[in-house]
């Protein structure tokens, strides 16, 4: 492998400030780094593989909880997030190209765009998580969907728009409390609306209240026993993916700072390339999560 004697090696090292002493050439250093990155990505795939396995086992044996659970996920938000992440992958790939070509301003612009997309992705994920939280659709023992019998009686007791308004105001006053046990305020009516919008702070007439109660009964009736399993898997998979997005953002931020100091060019772009590989893997995992969680037929 090493045809270079000590003399030429030290000349190469003095020419390339990025070349670590244990590598012969920049080419060797780059390819070793890339190989290491791919090995790391392989372990990442195995890490997510465990979660995909849990998903496969539960979906094969209890398809009804997946069919039931997916109705509470918004295809609109999931789809937008897919597009946002694909676009961020595109800008990331472009920033690698820009680094290789020595186009520093394009590199910085693409990295900033990638970061903004990542923020957008997490923001949308936050909206989705907040909706689940409000309706008690959380994991395992925290799964307390808001259709307690008390809620029904309270709804039924509401006379006219005034009471309804007060009810909704109370709900708005302490949104975080709705996920706690013993809370009775929201009902499944809001829950079934989730796919379209949040509950409107309007004042529905009493007929709507009765319809809401009926809807609620239907929802309870149709709920499979272990619906919580779906939300456990949903939060585990999207949560771990979200953590990877945050880790990727930190890595991109680091590369961005280095790009602003003009540290990359045709001779040295390995960090941009390797962070890009990681970012594409995060995108790839979402490509599978989106149909598996949101698009169940």
């Amino acid at each position, binding site marked *: 492998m090493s045809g270079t004697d000590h003399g030429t090696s030290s000349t190469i090292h003095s020419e390339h400030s990025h070349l670590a002493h244990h590598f012969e050439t920049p080419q060797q250093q780059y390819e070793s780094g890339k190989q290491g990155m791919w090995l790391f990505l392989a372990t990442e795939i195995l890490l997510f593989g465990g979660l995909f*396995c849990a998903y496969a086992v539960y979906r094969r044996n209890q398809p009804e909880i997946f069919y039931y659970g997916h109705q509470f996920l918004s295809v609109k938000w999931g789809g937008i997030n897919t597009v946002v992440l694909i676009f961020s992958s595109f800008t990331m790939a472009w920033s690698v190209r820009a680094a290789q*070509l020595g186009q520093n301003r394009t590199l910085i612009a693409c990295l900033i765009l990638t970061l903004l997309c990542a923020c957008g992705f997490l923001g949308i994920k936050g909206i989705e998580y907040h909706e689940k939280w409000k309706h008690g659709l959380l994991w395992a023992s925290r799964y307390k969907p808001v259709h307690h019998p008390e809620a029904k009686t309270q709804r039924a007791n509401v006379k006219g728009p005034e009471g309804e308004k007060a009810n909704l105001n109370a709900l708005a006053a302490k949104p975080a409390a709705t996920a706690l046990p013993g809370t009775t305020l929201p009902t499944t009516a809001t829950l079934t609306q989730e796919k379209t919008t949040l509950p409107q702070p309007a004042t529905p007439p009493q007929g709507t209240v009765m319809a809401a109660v009926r809807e609620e009964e239907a929802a309870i009736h149709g709920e499979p026993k272990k619906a919580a399993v779906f939300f456990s898997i949903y939060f585990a998979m999207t949560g771990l993916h979200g953590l990877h997005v945050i880790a990727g953002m930190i890595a991109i931020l680091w590369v961005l700072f280095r790009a602003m100091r003009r540290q990359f060019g045709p001779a040295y772009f390995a960090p941009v390339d390797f962070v890009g590989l990681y970012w594409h893997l995060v995108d790839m995992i979402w490509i599978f999560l989106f149909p598996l969680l949101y698009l169940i037929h």
Partner: protein
Amino acid sequence: MAERESKQEAQGASNHGMAHVAPAWLLIGTFVALLSLTGATVAVTNFDLGRYNLYLAMGIATAKAMLVALFFMHLAFDKPVNALYLLTALVFVALFVSLSLMDSVHYQPDVKSFVQGAP
């Protein structure tokens, strides 16, 4: 390529061809293909194809992942050893999932009764 070489000359780099530079048309083409496939995977959920819905969704997702791996991640132009790492990981995940699903035949009567009972 000409642009790249001239830039490298300008910076005095001696490592021509350290890695493949993805051409702009390839990156844009991959991006457009990924968007169209995303649209397709959402659109097919409107059709009831039975269990083929899942196969189709996974097929489209695999096609998208391959586009990302081959072009965005440069695997199509890389040393094959990197692709080997990816494939090895996927083989082990497939092994893991399929072995875990081995006993699921026992649950199928319950699943079938649910599917038939559904409206």
